[in-house]
């Protein structure tokens, strides 16, 4: 029973990742799933639910629909709702039941596109993978549908990829990243996908660089590099020293020079648990601002090159627990729900992660962008 969480919860699922990434983009998102658990996708995993409107729907999948493979009912319901709601696009994604019956979401999306004339995307969520997979695929498909190459670049402009409340909560972090970019002379172009104007999103192809602030933005960044020649940099400008370093690297890639990843294999007595790009960025910030060596345990999908030799990608609770019980570990920086895995003599610095503990500690998610973090990590 590897990867079984006996004490800790699992990260929120791919379906929630889709809903979160597409929440503000003006589309209609339909999760093909049984009715009754709608709030899992929205209220539990979506802090914007009470403050911003979005067209998130559940298909109310029944046992009979599963047996019959009643795609027509789903398609006609979506087409009817689209005629009423007039979304900019339609995304259809799956859950465990459609996975078991092999529903073809690409074909369904294609039929909806033909009938409505709207851009559509069929997303391959199953409810059994992490939010990273769903959000990542959703953003990639959005970029494929709506963003095109532009030779007409906006000088110094940067897109931010991978912004969702699942990784940053609903605090000031994203606006702080905008401020940090502006302070360093960059023009903030599109932010995928929080607090961005529709015209900025559609101009994403005019950016000179992409800043990937979570793994959810990586696939789209890589696609835009290959298709449009837009270079990207992965990192979150946490702390002072690393924020400066990241700004320098961003300038370099805009000037067509290669960026140098800061991460070094350093070991140390501190362990960070969390989303890969954010955790590595915190580790870098600790190294520069506090001269503290930390290594990362990433329990989520992450691009391997993000991690150094001392970092670990561990999905199994028992493996994480083993790592945390090493004699060398003195401090753990992680979501409070990891506390039961941490030995009593090891200090826990709480760093709530919305995709892990949801609303439990949402008001305690810090904004660590471009500011002194010594006190927080003291």
């Amino acid at each position, binding site marked *: 029973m590897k990867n079984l969480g006996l004490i800790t919860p699992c990260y929120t699922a791919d379906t929630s990742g889709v809903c979160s990434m597409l929440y503000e983009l003006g589309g209609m998102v339909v999760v093909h799933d049984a009715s009754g658990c709608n709030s899992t996708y929205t209220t539990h995993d979506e802090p914007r639910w009470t403050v911003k409107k979005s067209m998130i729907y559940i298909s109310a999948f029944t*046992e*009979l629909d*599963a*047996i*019959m*493979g*009643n*795609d027509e009912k789903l398609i006609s319901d979506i087409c009817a709702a689209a005629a009423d709601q007039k979304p900019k696009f339609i995304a259809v994604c799956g859950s465990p039941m459609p996975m*078991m*019956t092999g529903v073809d979401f690409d074909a369904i999306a294609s039929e909806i596109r033909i009938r409505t004339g709207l851009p559509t995307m069929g997303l391959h969520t199953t409810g059994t993978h992490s939010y990273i997979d769903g959000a990542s695929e959703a953003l990639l498909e959005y970029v494929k549908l709506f963003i095109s190459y532009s030779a007409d670049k906006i000088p110094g402009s940067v897109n931010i990829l991978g912004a969702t409340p699942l990784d940053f909560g609903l605090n000031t972090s994203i606006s702080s990243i905008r401020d940090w970019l502006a302070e360093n002379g960059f023009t903030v172009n599109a932010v995928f996908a929080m607090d961005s104007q529709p015209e900025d999103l559609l101009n994403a192809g005019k950016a000179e660089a992409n800043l990937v602030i979570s793994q959810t933005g990586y696939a789209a960044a890589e696609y835009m590099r290959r298709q449009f020649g837009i270079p990207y940099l992965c990192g979150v400008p946490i702390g002072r020293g690393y924020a400066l370093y990241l700004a320098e690297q961003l300038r370099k890639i805009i000037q067509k020079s290669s960026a140098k990843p800061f991460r070094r294999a350093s070991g140390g007595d501190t362990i960070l648990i969390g989303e890969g790009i954010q955790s590595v960025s915190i580790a870098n910030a600790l190294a520069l601002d506090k001269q503290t060596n930390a290594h990362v345990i990433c329990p989520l999908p992450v691009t391997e090159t993000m991690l150094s030799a001392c970092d670990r990608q561990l999905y199994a609770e028992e493996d994480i627990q083993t790592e945390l019980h090493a004699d060398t570990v003195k401090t753990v920086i992680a979501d409070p729900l990891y506390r039961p895995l941490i030995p009593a003599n090891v200090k826990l610095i709480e760093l709530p992660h919305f995709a892990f503990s949801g609303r439990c500690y949402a008001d305690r998610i810090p904004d660590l962008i471009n500011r002194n973090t010594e006190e927080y990590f003291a």
Partner: protein
Amino acid sequence: MIKLAIYGKGGIGKSTCTANLAAAFATLGKRVIQIGCDPKADSTINLLGGSPVTPVMNWLREHDDEPDSIEDISKIGFRNILCIETGGPTPGLGCAGRGIITTFKLLEELELFAKYQPDVVLYDVLGDVVCGGFAAPIREGYAEKVLIVTSGEKMALYAANNIGNAVNNFEDRSYATVRGIIMNRRNVENEEEKVRSFADSAGYPIIADIPRSADITKYEDMGKTVIEGDPECETSKRFLTLAKQLIAEDT
């Protein structure tokens, strides 16, 4: 009550054997239900003069609701045999196995056995035990014995072996057990020897030997079982003998 599930390779003659066995039981005065568990829904057609019953899945699809009575989803055939077909989803979509489970649940809700009081229930199941749905007929409360139909053809014996293994896998679950093999001859070389060799190695008796007969095709073309068409012919006698044996075992 005799409750039998008939399995075997696709095209081996399961429906022919099941319908003839049902007709034999009915001829011997038994009250019989035959439930076809195949999306093709052609198990009972020769008990119904070639005029098929509406499969349960078709009914659900057309009405988007469950039927109120057994009569909605059944038809009375030869010698009052109650014929039911699960049917299935549109080919290539949905989940046929789940459809069988749902049909069984529905039949329970409609109190099929309590209302019809059958002496014999026959489940004619599609090909192999490919998933949980196709194992539903052998779950506790449904069939108690499994008859495997095979010829001496290699692939038919291969499928028979798979079916036997699948049934044996459930021995701790109070599921049905294999009662024996119906050898449905295709006149392949050394047919009896091949089937007997398999049966001996698997530990199953050959409980019926059905000759290859033009009569079967002749009467099926007329929408009949051979029992209905010519109860005195050799093929009919074999089915009647099998039915008598199974009745004797049950008493």
